[in-house]
């Protein structure tokens, strides 16, 4: 049990290396950074923006304590680019931003997918378009998948609690290292600014994944292909003595540009796609309750999952409505086959989102033959109240 400031050791003498195990009371932004440090974060390239600045500020305070580097850049484009350099040099790297900055980072996300560069970007979503507003939102969930140019599959997680901000950040780094790809944490203002209890397990209980390196596979420097060998190619660091040719143009396994070779490019794109979408069942997670007896279903993600759970508990207990609950923990790759395995046949599927109905599209695509209708429950700039969800559910199921 510790409520002491993170900067102090338990005996109050000096900076703690990593957060102590046990129970803490932290803000989502702080939990995110503490999780990142445990995952091995070494470089944070930052540019401030409401409501993501607290992540940057905490990273700036904490990274020097663990021998990491914090750098504030001149804009979000260069902030994202610092992660690429840091990652190629072997360091785990992250940044956090919000809608307008996330737009500026799209080119680097696409570049990192193509160059298979592990890095983590947190989008603390606020309402748009433009500079929009500074409250909470889930309006960038489609941008996460389709905002960057080209056929680039992505991994994106949707946290709903302070514990998630900690756990999912560690998971994001692990996924990023495992699949050699950028990973997005689609947080919201609500969860970034929320304070609640955080349980930190003993360090030896926390799984931390390191990228596969050619040295681990016994590949000699002269035989190394930065985009070859396997579905997920091993990644050598600059300075390891391996020739590394990183290129985001169409390339051969050895990294040489594949000019006028569409077959080579197609092969590469298929592999990038197989790596993420082909492993959707391994990568993506959902959580569910009351699926056994449900006549209707509520599907949600992020903080809305909490409001959703509150509303369906009340719908079941007070109004006798047999409604189930499913939370998309992973937004992308979209867990289509997982959903089809879990959901057999229901009446109405309700999809509350803090946008005008975005994830309801892949949900509809996945389950259109498993339900009578999909009903979007939109909200702009604020969490739905449980009453609002309940009212819509009761109106539709006529109870």
């Amino acid at each position, binding site marked *: 049990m510790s409520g002491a400031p993170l900067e102090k050791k338990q005996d109050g003498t000096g900076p703690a290396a990593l957060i102590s195990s046990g129970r803490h009371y932290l803000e989502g932004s702080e939990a995110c950074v503490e999780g990142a440090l445990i995952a091995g974060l070494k470089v944070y390239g930052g540019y401030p923006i409401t409501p993501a600045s607290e992540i940057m500020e905490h990273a700036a305070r904490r990274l020097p304590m663990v021998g990491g580097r914090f750098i504030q850049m001149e804009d979000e484009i260069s902030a994202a680019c610092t992660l690429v350099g840091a990652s190629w040099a072997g360091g785990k790297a992250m940044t956090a931003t919000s809608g307008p900055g996330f737009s500026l980072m799209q080119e680097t996300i696409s570049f990192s997918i193509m160059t298979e560069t592990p890095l983590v970007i947190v989008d603390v979503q606020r309402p748009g378009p433009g500079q929009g507003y500074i409250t909470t939102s889930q309006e960038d969930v489609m941008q996460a998948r389709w905002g960057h140019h080209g056929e680039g599959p992505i991994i994106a997680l949707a946290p709903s609690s302070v514990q998630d901000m900690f756990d999912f950040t560690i998971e994001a780094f692990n996924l990023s290292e495992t699949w050699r790809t950028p990973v997005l944490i689609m947080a919201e203002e609500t969860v970034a*600014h*929320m*304070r*609640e209890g955080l349980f930190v397990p003993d360090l030896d209980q926390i799984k931390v994944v390191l990228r596969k390196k050619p040295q681990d596979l016994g590949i000699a420097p002269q035989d190394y292909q930065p985009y070859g060998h396997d579905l997920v190619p091993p990644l050598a660091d600059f300075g390891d003595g391996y020739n590394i040719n990183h290129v985001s143009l169409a390339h051969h396994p050895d990294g040489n540009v594949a000019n006028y070779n569409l077959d080579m490019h197609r092969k590469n794109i298929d592999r990038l796609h197989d790596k993420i979408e082909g492993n959707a069942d391994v990568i993506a997670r959902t959580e569910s309750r009351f699926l056994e007896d449900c006549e209707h279903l509520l599907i949600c993600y992020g903080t809305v999952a909490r409001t959703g759970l509150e*509303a369906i508990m*009340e719908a079941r207990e007070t109004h006798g409505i047999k409604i189930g609950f499913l939370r998309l923990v992973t937004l992308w790759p979209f867990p289509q086959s997982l959903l089809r395995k879990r959901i057999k046949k229901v009446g109405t599927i309700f999809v509350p989102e803090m946008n005008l109905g975005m994830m309801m599209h892949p949900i509809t695509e996945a389950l259109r033959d498993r339900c009578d209708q999909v009903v979007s429950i939109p909200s702009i700039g604020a969490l739905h109240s*449980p009453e609002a969800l309940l009212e819509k559910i009761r109106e539709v199921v006529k109870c």
Partner: protein
Amino acid sequence: MSDSTRFEIRIAGFGGQGVVTIGKVLGQAFTIHEGLNSVNTRSYGPESRGGACRSEVVVSRSEIYYPGVRNADILVALSQTALDAYISDLKDGGILLIDPNAVKKVPKGVCFYEVPAMEIAHELGSVKYQNAVALGALAAILNSRIKKESLAQAIAENVPPKTIEKNIAAFEKGWAHVGAALSLVI
């Protein structure tokens, strides 16, 4: 409501009154020192001083789903604007705490306590201590729900070390002020 142990506190006022810190201290006291679940959320306008500002704490023995206030058990209003905005969400039988120098009009039939937080803080040397005074008053109101020591400890953990003594003095004054009205042993 399915969770009978759910208890909701809303603190509202202007930026600069320490509204966010009150919520943080309460949440930390409930979770770290009392072993309960609590969620603290906050919202404010783009201004760092003077804009409307709100902090909420939801406490429960069970897992907390919806993180915001649905019907507040306690409303702390540090400005008339805040009172006017949130009084309708106060539960029937809920308790209101106001600074009488900032809030002049309270609707009839609402049970309320007064603590001149700004004035007391000023006497202690800085208006910065007004949130500690309000926390002391809250400690008296929350007497059956949280130990006074838990709140005092959480204050000490959240203020600059040099100001702990003054903050605790402010906390005690707030507690004594409302404690007297509640006939708590002082």
